[in-house]
C-alpha cells in the first residue's frame, strides 16, 4: 500500500519538505493554489477491517465533499501523538483514542480543544465515535465437551484446557479478571486492583501470548496458536469470516468507546476539525459502523444503521444487555501506575 507510510518515523522530514515546497510554490505561483496546504489530511489508521470501513464510509466521501485528500498513517501510536507536539513534526493530524488513553492525552495537553458536534458527544476533548468490545472467543476444534460461557470459564483450565491469550493492556484485562473472580458487572468500579492481580496470578502460566496488535490477535486465533482469547470483536469476525473454526460469546464482553481527536497545534487544524465533525455525523458514521460492526455513539446515526448489521454490533438491543462498559472516571486507581505494575507483573 503506497498510502501507508509505515516507516515515516525514520523520515519525518519528508512531509516538512513537502509542506516547505508547497509554501514555496504558493509564494511563487498564482494565488489559486494558496489553499494547497489545506488540501491534504493525515489520519492515523488501525488497519484491517477498521481501515476498509473508514476508507469507504468516511475518507472517500469526505474527499468527495471537500476536495481534501486523506492519507493514512500506520500504526496507531499514542507515543507518536505525543512526540508530534514535542517536535512540531506532524505525521498525522487526526487519530482515535480509547477511553483509557483519552484522559491521559487530554491531561498531557497533546490534543486540541474541540466543540461537540452533537449533544453529549464530547468527552475529554474527544468526539465519541463508536463502541467496540473485547470479547471471549475460542477454537471449536479444541476438543472440549462444553461451550465456554463467561470469563470464569476462561480461567477454568481443567474444564477447558489449552493455551490462552489476552491483550497486553492493563485497563482492559483487570476488569476481566475481576469478572472471572465472580464480581458482578455493576459492582466492578472502582476496581479492586489487588484482587484483580491475585486472580491474574492464577491464569498467568496459561497465557501463551499477550497480544499487542489487532492483526496479531486475529492471526494467533486463526492459526490455532491459542485455543481461547480475549479479542476485539471486529478482529474476531475477521477470523470467523476467514473460515477459521471459531466461536464467541457476547456475554461479559467489555465495551470501550473510541473518540476522534485532533493533534494539538497541527498545521492542518481546519481540515482536521472538519473531518472529525464529518466522521461523527449521522450518515457517514452509520455507514462506517454498519460495515465494521461497531456501535454508533451518535444516537442520530442509529436510524441509518442497517438491521442486517445489528447482530454483530456490541451495542445493539440484543447484545447490549450482555456486555459491560469501561468506566474510566471511576476506575479505581491511577491507570498509569497500574499499567506499570502490570508490566512488572508480566516480567516476573
Amino acid at each position, binding site marked *: 500500500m503506497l498510502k501507508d507510510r509505515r516507516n515515516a518515523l525514520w523520515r519525518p522530514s519528508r512531509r516538512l519538505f513537502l509542506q516547505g515546497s508547497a509554501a514555496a510554490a504558493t509564494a511563487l505561483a498564482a494565488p489559486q493554489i494558496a489553499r494547497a496546504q489545506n488540501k491534504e489530511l493525515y489520519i492515523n489508521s488501525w488497519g484491517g477491517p477498521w481501515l476498509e470501513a473508514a476508507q469507504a464510509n468516511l475518507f472517500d466521501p469526505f474527499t468527495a465533499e471537500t476536495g481534501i485528500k486523506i492519507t493514512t498513517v500506520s500504526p496507531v501510536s499514542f*507515543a507518536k501523538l505525543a512526540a508530534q507536539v514535542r517536535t512540531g513534526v506532524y505525521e498525522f493530524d487526526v487519530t482515535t483514542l480509547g477511553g483509557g488513553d483519552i484522559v491521559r492525552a487530554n491531561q498531557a495537553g497533546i490534543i486540541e480543544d474541540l466543540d461537540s458536534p452533537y449533544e453529549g458527544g464530547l468527552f475529554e476533548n474527544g468526539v465519541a465515535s463508536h463502541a467496540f468490545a473485547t470479547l471471549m472467543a475460542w477454537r471449536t476444534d479444541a476438543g472440549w465437551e462444553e461451550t465456554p460461557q463467561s470469563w470464569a470459564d476462561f480461567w477454568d483450565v481443567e474444564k477447558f484446557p489449552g*493455551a490462552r491469550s489476552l491483550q497486553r493492556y492493563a485497563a482492559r484485562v483487570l476488569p476481566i479478571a475481576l469478572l472471572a473472580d465472580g464480581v458482578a458487572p455493576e459492582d466492578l468500579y472502582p476496581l479492586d486492583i489487588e484482587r484483580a492481580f491475585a486472580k491474574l496470578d492464577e491464569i498467568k502460566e496459561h497465557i501463551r*501470548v499477550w497480544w499487542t496488535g489487532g492483526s496479531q490477535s486475529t492471526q494467533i486465533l486463526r492459526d490455532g*496458536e491459542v485455543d481461547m482469547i480475549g479479542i476485539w470483536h471486529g478482529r474476531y469476525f475477521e477470523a470467523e469470516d476467514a473460515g477459521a473454526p471459531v466461536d464467541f460469546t457476547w456475554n461479559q464482553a467489555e465495551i470501550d468507546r473510541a473518540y476522534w481527536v485532533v493533534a494539538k497545534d497541527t498545521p492542518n487544524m481546519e481540515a482536521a476539525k472538519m473531518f472529525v465533525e464529518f466522521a461523527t455525523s449521522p450518515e457517514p458514521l452509520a455507514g462506517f459502523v454498519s460495515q465494521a460492526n461497531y456501535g454508533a455513539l451518535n444516537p442520530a446515526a442509529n436510524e441509518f444503521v442497517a438491521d442486517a448489521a445489528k447482530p454483530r454490533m456490541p451495542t445493539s438491543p440484543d447484545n447490549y444487555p450482555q456486555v459491560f462498559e469501561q468506566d474510566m472516571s471511576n476506575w479505581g486507581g491511577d491507570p498509569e501506575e497500574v499499567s506499570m505494575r502490570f*508490566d512488572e507483573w508480566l*516480567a516476573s
Partner: protein
Amino acid sequence: MAVTLSTLTERRNLWPWLLLAPLAVYLALFFLVPLAEVAIMSVTEPRPGLANYEKVLTGSLYRKVFLNTFATAALVTVCCLLVGYPLAYLMNATTQRRAMMILLLITMSFWTSFLVRTYAWMVLLGNNGPVIWLLETIGFEDPPGILFTRFSSTLAMVHILAPYMIMNIYSVMQKIDRSLIRSAESMGAYGLSLFRHVYLPLTAPGIANGSVLVFVICLGFYVTPVLLGSPREQMAAGLIGHQIEEFLAFGLGSAMAIVLLVVTLIVLAIYSRRFGLDKLYG
C-alpha cells in the same frame, strides 16, 4: 594543475581526514546529535535530575530485563559459537568450491529482510507448522508449544547472528599456517590434544571477534524477541519501546538506552584492551 592533489598527498596526515570528512559530518549530524538529545532527555524528562537513572538501576523490572538481556546475548553468543565453529572448520577443510557454496548458503539469509525471517520462524514453529507436525509424526503426543518462548526467540536470533560468527572464525582459520599443525603432529600431538593446544589457541582471535560482534548486536535486538518471545523474557530494546509507547516515558526510555549504550561500550573497551579493537575489522 595537479598541484592540489599532490600537495594533499604530500601532507600525508591531512589526506585521510579529508576522506573521512563526509562520513564524519554525516555521523555527527545524524548520529551524535540525536544521541546527545537522547542523553539530555534522560536527565531532563519529565524533570531535571537523575531520577530516571535511579529508577533504571534500582527498579526490579529494569534490573530483571537488563540481566535477561545480557543472559540472552550470552546464550545466543554461545549457541552461535557451537553452530559456527564446526561449520567454519568444515569450510576451511573442504575444497574451495564447496566452501564457497556453504558461504553462499549462509549469506543468503542476509539478503532476506529481518522481519520476513522473523515471520518465517512463526510459520515454521507455529502449532500448525512443520516442526510441530514432525514432532507429532515421530510420536510426541501433545508436543509443547515452541512459539512465543525463550527457545523460539533464541533460535531465531542465533539464525540471524550466526553468519557474523562463522565469517569471523573462517577468516582466521584460513590464515593459519598449516606447517604449524604439521610440526605439532611431528611432536606427537594429535586428536583432541592437537585441537586443544594448537588449533583452538590459533583460532581464538576469530572466536573473540565473532563473539563480541554477536554479543553486542544481540544486546540491541528489538523485533525478534518482541514477536517471537514472551514478556517474561523481554529484552531491553523491547522494554524501551514499550515504555515510550505505553507510558510516554521518554526520559526513562532514554535513560535505559544510555545505560545499554554504556554497557556495550564497556564490553568493547574490555575487548579493546585485551585484543585490540582494530582486530574486529579483520
